[in-house]
């Protein structure tokens, strides 16, 4: 899995890392039990502060997407969406969809885009292990 960081982006680096890991989980690139790189190693590869990577991992841990363990490091975990997540996610989706409508996109276009994005998830399957 290749992670990209846009240094000129207004989105904080930890948020960029968090978002890409979430997308990798949705894509099926990272499955339950998949280990994530060590914070210090990833920070060194990017040339960023390890606290930034730590912040991204901590956010993922709080959201129940990964587990942090001293022995195994960061590992992707299975998670079940609870009602509070559903309400919070709906609120964010509402804002995102409102932006599209406010910009003049038609409901059909918005729905088609949503369908396309949803269909794109799961198309990348993890490699077979021998």
């Amino acid at each position, binding site marked *: 899995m*290749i992670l*990209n960081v*846009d240094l000129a982006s207004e989105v904080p680096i930890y948020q960029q890392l968090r978002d890409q890991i979430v997308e*990798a989980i949705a894509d099926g690139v990272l499955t339950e039990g*998949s280990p994530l790189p060590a914070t210090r190693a990833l920070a060194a590869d990017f040339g960023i502060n390890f606290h930034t990577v730590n912040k991204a991992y901590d956010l993922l841990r709080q959201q129940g997407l990964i587990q942090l363990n001293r022995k195994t490091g960061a590992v992707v975990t299975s998670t079940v969406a609870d009602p509070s997540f559903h309400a919070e996610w709906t609120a964010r989706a509402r804002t995102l969809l409102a932006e599209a409508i406010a910009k003049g996109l038609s409901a059909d276009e918005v729905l088609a885009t949503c369908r396309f994005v949803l269909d794109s998830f799961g198309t990348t399957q993890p490699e*077979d292990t021998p």
Partner: protein
Amino acid sequence: MTVAIALSSGLSALVLVLALVLPSITSPTVPFGVRVPAQRADDSTVVRQTRIYRWRVLVSGIVAGGVGVVIYGVTGETLLLPLSVLVLVGVWYGCFFLAHHEIRAAKAAGGWYEGLHQGIAVDTGCGPTDRGFPGSGWHRR
């Protein structure tokens, strides 16, 4: 005494060669520790500063070697010979810093990164590297 002279001369030559080849072995997009866009790697400022840096290092190396020989000739003290190596390392750092400063100033003044995005990509080794990329197990597809 002969060993000390040979060792000191060899060390000075090694430092001098290292300092002279440094701009060639470092990444062209990070000349003298300054990150520049790929299209600015051959900018006139970078080329000029590289040339100036090499001249400064070469002249300083010759001067440091000459001073070392003179000091040894006057005092006859072999322990002072490594001093020229230390001076050379110090001068090397100074030349590097001056080139770094000049390129950094040109980068800021010219807005070399205006309209460009700086990004870093890292292969984490987790999951497939890329779709269709010949990573591990690509042949089984």
